[in-house]
């Protein structure tokens, strides 16, 4: 349907909407349960504990180097499930579309949702579509909710860190935030950099079979700093991180210098920090490095005796400084 755009009628619940679903949405997602057109997906209940999460996606622009809003929406929710050790099973997909969005754009996003869901081994089993007037949304907003099952014997929690545990990170930080910024027209710089956006459930499954993992967090908004602060606050123990050991690409560092940003606070979409007991560090790190999404995995620090919420960074000079929760948005400097 080249050139055709979404109109208010596509969200009206009538024939145009059915048409959109049957011609565009269902074929892209290829999920039988959706074709049943029930009010709710009816699915077999898995054994064990369930993990449930939801997330909304409002990224601008919709397409960026290394990803798009569809891929992001699947990864975001799949990764949140993976961070409690769950194997993702089902997703729901809510679309809030701005009138005037090209149907081809929607098709590209849906194809990306389907491909990423297949990669993550998760099924999109329910959805909703709304259309709002032109100017009331930035093209497309997406919400996904996810359900996963936590395998027997797995106990991963944001509060799981214990003194002596080691902090592992699966690669370079800041790629996503900088790649998306670079696509925005208000910044006139270009970088040879892709978002790290990726579903981490497979990596996490490998890690969990290699050894014990006490705690995990995906450092998305607020970056690595916020993730570490949250783990410290929830566990009640302090963390210590060596600044030099945190992998940051030169391009990311350069752009951050230019805009007055700190890579530690820039968003990632395919990274995780894992807290692993000392005895299992070697095995888990080995498993991480054997996975394509963990080739650059490394230890960045440890859990120490100390005050709840305290995250210390050891600088190249050997001085210590405390990491803060990010405050508001990071603004670029002017002089």
């Amino acid at each position, binding site marked *: 349907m080249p050139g055709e755009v979404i109109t208010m009628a596509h969200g009206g619940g009538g024939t145009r909407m059915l048409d959109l679903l049957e011609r565009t949405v269902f074929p892209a997602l290829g999920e039988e349960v959706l074709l049943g057109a029930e009010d709710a997906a009816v699915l077999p209940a898995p054994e064990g504990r369930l993990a449930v999460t939801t997330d909304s996606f409002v990224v601008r622009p919709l397409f960026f180097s290394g990803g798009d809003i569809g891929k992001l929406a699947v990864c975001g929710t799949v990764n949140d499930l993976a961070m409690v050790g769950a194997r993702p099973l089902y997703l729901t997909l809510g679309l809030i579309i701005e009138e005037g969005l090209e149907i081809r754009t929607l098709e590209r996003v849906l194809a990306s949702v389907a491909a990423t869901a297949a990669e993550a081994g998760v099924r999109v089993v329910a959805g909703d579509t709304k259309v709002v007037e032109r100017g009331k949304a930035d093209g497309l907003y997406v919400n996904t909710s996810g359900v996963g099952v936590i395998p027997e014997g797995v106990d991963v929690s944001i509060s799981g860190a214990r003194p002596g545990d080691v902090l592992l990170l699966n690669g370079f930080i800041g790629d996503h935030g900088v790649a998306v910024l670079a696509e925005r027209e*208000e*910044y*006139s710089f270009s970088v040879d950099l892709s978002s790290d956006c990726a579903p981490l459930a497979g990596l996490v499954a490998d890690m969990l079979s290699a050894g014990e993992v006490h705690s995990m967090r995906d450092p998305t908004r607020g970056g690595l700093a916020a993730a570490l602060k949250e783990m410290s606050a929830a566990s009640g123990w302090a963390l210590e991180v060596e600044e*030099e050991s945190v992998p940051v690409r*030169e*391009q990311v*560092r*350069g752009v951050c*210098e230019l805009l*007055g940003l700190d890579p530690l606070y820039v968003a990632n979409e395919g990274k995780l920090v894992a807290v692993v007991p000392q005895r299992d560090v070697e095995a888990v790190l080995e498993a991480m490095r054997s996975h394509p999404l963990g080739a650059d995995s490394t230890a960045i620090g440890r859990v120490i005796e100390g*005050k709840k*919420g*305290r995250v210390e960074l050891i*600088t*190249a*000079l*050997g*001085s*210590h*400084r*405390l990491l*803060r929760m990010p*405050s*508001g948005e*990071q*603004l*670029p*400097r*002017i*002089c």
Partner: protein
Amino acid sequence: MKYLDEFRDPGTLRALVAKIAGLPGSVTLMEVCGTHTMAISKAGLRQVLSPGVELVSGPGCPVCVTAVADIDRAVALAHMPGVMLATFGDMMKVPGTSGSLAGAAARGAQVRVVYSPLEALVLARENPGLDVVLLGVGFETTAPAVAATVRKAYAEGLCNFYALSLHKLVPPALRALAGLPGFHVDGFILPGHVSVVIGGEAYRFLVDEFSIPCVITGFEAADVLQAIYRLKSMKKSGPALENEYSRAVRPEGNPRALSVMWEVFEPADAEWRGLGSIPGSGLALKERYRDLDAGSWEVSRPEPGGLGGCRCGDILCGRIRPVECPLFGVSCTPDSPVGPCMVSTEGTCAAYYLYEREEP
């Protein structure tokens, strides 16, 4: 960007720290520029240099030294019907007597954050029904770009573009500071990027008239440490003006940048937070560009208030350190700032709060 790492190599840094510690005595040095303040706090230099070197911050954060009355004027302009105010992001959250630009935007004023002054021209072209006012804040680093923008708007005959110049010049402020009764430092760490524009010789008077050692340097930890080493050495060898940033700074500065700046602007008296009115320390639009000057517009603004006990003025003159302000970290935080030094990404209080404050 590969060159950045050479200035962060732990071995190089530790060797410089040891060299500084090896020099006898102790010194108090002022880093004039906010970018230096941030670099010092972030690298944790104070920890490793104590007790032989004390570092105090100076009036080198353009957002911080902007007077309350000028912020009130900008907020009042933003509230005027038919006006769109274009500003650098750092100014958004700076508190005025009755709120900030961010507060004005939240209440419906048209405020746009720009990253380059030229974007304000685009805004003016795209919004012919609005008067677009570019808020010019910054030192000699920013003023040439704003000047070039004003010149372009004038040449194009764009009739809905205006500028409010709150620009300030670094050397007159240093002269005022050095002349303050009781002011004493053993040396100035001077900003590389300002010096790229104005040239190293612009600071000569600090050595000749005030006998204060001066080193111009860059913004990496190694740059700052090298400057500190040179300044501490001058305790023995006597005051001099040195340029450790010769990879970018020439004695005469950048003639092209200076020429566009002086084509559009002329020196004017300016009000500095903390230092008061300093003759010839600001930049006003020249007669030819007066029609583009939003500084002459009648606005109704409140009587400038005192920002409830805020001591940013004392901090900007190096009189106190942030921890000596009773508001610091208590009622004044980055989330709810009382004064500008806590807001700006180059503010001294923000640097201490972010990197050097123990958590309660």
